[in-house]
């Protein structure tokens, strides 16, 4: 598994995503409240591009007629059929045992460290003074 620098942290504001291509894979990188999560940009159901999905919260209920709405910004609805995925894990909410999106570890690294380390920066130019999103693919 190699590490790839794919964006500066500033490229992906909170609540948005950026699509990058790494080793032929199209990957969507999401910024959820300052943390970055990356997964294959392809719904496991019918292949829709997940980068176009709505980012919402998770609604649950213990009692008919009540709505407990939490985790705003952490759930992605597929743009085609509305299936909900947990952006943090890639797991489907409606079919958690059988359906998930392939995800990739994402981290934030200082540019200075990246220039020294064993990172593949070819997909993205790195300068010493910025923070970068690094994927393991």
């Amino acid at each position, binding site marked *: 598994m190699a590490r790839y620098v794919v964006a500066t942290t500033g490229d992906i504001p909170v609540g948005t995503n950026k699509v990058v291509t790494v080793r032929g894979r199209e990957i969507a990188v999401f910024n959820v409240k300052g943390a970055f999560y990356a997964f294959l940009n392809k719904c496991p159901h019918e292949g829709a591009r997940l980068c176009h999905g709505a980012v919402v919260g998770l609604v649950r209920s213990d009692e008919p007629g009540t709505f407990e709405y939490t985790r705003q910004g952490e759930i992605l609805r597929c743009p085609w059929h*509305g299936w909900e995925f947990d952006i943090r894990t890639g797991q489907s909410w409606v079919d958690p045992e059988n359906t998930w999106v392939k995800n990739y570890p994402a981290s934030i690294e200082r540019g200075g460290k990246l220039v020294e380390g064993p990172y593949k920066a070819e997909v993205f130019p790195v300068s010493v003074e910025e923070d970068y999103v690094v994927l393991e693919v």
Partner: protein
Amino acid sequence: MSWRDVKPIDCDIHVVVPHTGVLLPYLDDYWRDYVTVRGVRNLDMTSYPPTAPLTSRPDWRPATGHAGTDLALLRRHVFDELGAQIAICNVVWGAQALHHHHLAAALCRAVNAWVAAEWLDREPRLRASIVVPWQNAAHAVEEIERCAPDRRFVQVLLLAMADQPLGREHYWPIYEAAARHGLPIAIHAGSAYRHATTSLGWPSTLLEDYVAQASGFQNQLMSLICEGALSKFPDLKVVLVESGVTWLPAFMWRANKIWRAMRMETPWVDRPPAAIVRDQVRLTLQPFDAPPDAAVVERVIEQIDSDRTILFATDYPHWQFDEDEVIPAGLSADLARRVLVDNALATYPRLESLS
């Protein structure tokens, strides 16, 4: 092995109120005078006119013309000839369809008292459904409370189409009382004809009306799921009676598919609708809406993904089959045993095998 060797539990036979006169001893003074003075002689349902051929198999129709009114005949047909060990009788009658909910309450009370005295007391293999004035949930709960101590009443009877969708909170007190007493809710084919029996408006023909029953059942199931009634009462079992069976797999598939997209709207439905159906919903066998072929039945059961869903029923005296072809020949012994006996025992806490 013949299915008759297993001594089946028949989950749907019909006892018929021949005329209001038989209920007079079971009405209090006010209501006895009311029905007498107003000449309320007959409250047969439009769904099953007593003289219609479908209402009774010719060889089961007594000389009086009113099938399901004679205990000796019922004994012979259901217990001796069809071999049931227990049979649950459903009275589908106009009291359930009246707008006058106080009159409905009085008549339902009388029907249940008449069933207990004239049928259950005389035939120990009979069980009955509680007929309730569901137009008024408080009245219905009162009637459930009155009948529940008599454990020969094994479920509560509603109709597939009436005032409003069955998932609505109006009906929840009925479900609460039923669940508390270990009584499944039976939803029987038929309509109170408050609304058109198709979502398009009134059909012209009996054929359309009959076929539309299946979509009525589907809409009721969806209502019970989406409004949260089945989630609210997870111990409640719902038995669809005379619903047909083969529409269920396609319904389960469609309900799951759309739920996945729109789960946000009903977050209390916290698992796929098909899973709720498998846990809480049962269907009676007759009238069976597929070729009487064991392979077809087994395929449908495989698609439902549960062999606990279907309950044996003859629908006596309605004319749904000839001779004794109640269930398709050639079912595996295990499956036959489940359908004939075990599924009913698992569905009805008040039933105990008599064989």
